[in-house]
């Protein structure tokens, strides 16, 4: 059994969170509120030390009228956003929002086209139909499966006749994919629990290898 007081605190907090499984209780609520506060403080300090001070304040103080003068622009945008909280200047925040959205959405167009569409087409077309029987079958499944599943996302006409058949096949392909995701999600969650029990049994109680 551990003698480190910190380990004991950590173990008690762990048990406090586990108590939620029985039902919501005061112990859990204390842990929950504690972590919300602590991590907000943590976030603030990290953000200040790693971004706000070295990337904004310091360049502005050292070089604010020279090559880093452009950093006044984000200060202005944040100021515009803050205008939202004053009734008279409320509408000014739309300008800040427009700015915010434009950069993000603007850059998302070409990058989505590149990584999400073109590269995927290249991958599908270049899937070769030679090699071992498993590979041939697999690549056929890949090409046809992608096509059928894409047809499921075809909205212009009703899904009737051939299209209905193809889009049903498409949903089946999607379901196989979701099944794979599902089992991996379960696996992932189990690992998190294993980690906690490893802490309780090994680091705290010292009863398991």
């Amino acid at each position, binding site marked *: 059994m551990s003698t480190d007081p910190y380990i004991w605190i950590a173990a008690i907090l762990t048990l406090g969170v586990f108590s939620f499984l029985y039902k919501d209780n005061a112990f859990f609520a204390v842990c929950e509120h504690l972590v919300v506060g602590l991590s907000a403080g943590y976030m603030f300090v990290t953000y200040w030390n790693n971004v706000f001070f070295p990337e904004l304040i310091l360049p502005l103080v050292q070089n604010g009228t020279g090559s880093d003068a452009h950093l006044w622009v984000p200060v202005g945008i944040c100021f515009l956003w803050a205008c939202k909280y004053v009734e008279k200047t409320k509408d000014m925040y739309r300008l800040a929002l427009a700015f915010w959205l434009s950069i993000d959405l603007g850059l998302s167009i070409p*990058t989505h086209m590149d990584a999400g569409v073109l590269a995927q087409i290249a991958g599908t077309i270049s899937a070769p139909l030679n090699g071992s029987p498993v590979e041939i079958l697999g690549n056929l499944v890949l090409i046809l499966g992608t096509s059928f599943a894409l047809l499921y996302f075809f909205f212009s006409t009703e899904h009737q006749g051939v299209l209905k058949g193809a889009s049903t096949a498409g949903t089946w392909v999607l379901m196989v994919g979701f099944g794979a995701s599902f089992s991996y999600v379960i696996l992932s969650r189990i690992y998190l629990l294993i980690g906690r029990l490893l802490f309780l049994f090994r680091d705290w109680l010292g009863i398991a290898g």
Partner: protein
Amino acid sequence: MNYLRTAAAKLVGLDRRVVFIAVFVAVAIPFFLPVHFTAVPEEETIQFDNALVQALQSEKPILVDVDFGPQTMAEMEPMLLALLHRIFQSGHKAIFLTFMTEATSPIRNYLAEMESIYDLEYGRDYVFLGYASAYAYTMYGLGNSFSAYFHRDDRGTPLDRLPLMKNVNSLRDVSVVINIASNAFPRFWIQYSVTPHGFDFLAGTTAVGATEYYPYLQTGQLKGLLAGGRGAAEYETLLVEKGILKGPGDATAGLGAQSLALFTILGFILIGNVAYFLNRGKAR
């Protein structure tokens, strides 16, 4: 048959706390049983290591982006530790950064550990650039310049005073980018940086997101993938075989608990379905 149906109806209404207890027991028992499993490395894991070996032969440093917090540490920690041993044992230099505030403290911790094991020198053998916000845009921008987004490293030293960063101006100057992430950041790396700028990219993710990356593996946008705790266990096996790790780590230790828990859940799914079909028969 009637008896079965009543039992089925009861099972459907089973209190979920019973399920909870079963899962807890299933995960707990294997810790006290001396049965040891190993995970056989799958194709993706071997691909990952091969790509990494290629990068280790180059002169350029490796860029490692670590994005996981305490929430998913159980799954990601063994993976990162195996990777760090792999990199530092070969004497390669590495640059670290993160886009997640919660990751900063753990990274400092792991790097301090590595420093004492392999006798590394900060600034020459490795650098931690610290946390950066605006992940997607920083990833995109790093393709042209490091110094525009990181004026100073995590310890407040300006980048030009770090020997390791002297020859690193953009992502062109690193041999490979590795992202160990518990969230969708590998996807953002691929979309905003790998595809536009074109460089080798490896990812280690939680099992949750792993299946999502298979399209990128097929196109080569992603050169290798470690899939969650399972991938970490496979990688540990691989590194033990290659003599890099002395023994398997926490990921392999969890395989027994993982097996029993998966069996339990499969059992619950089976019971649920049998009960459902029996009940449906009764409703008719």
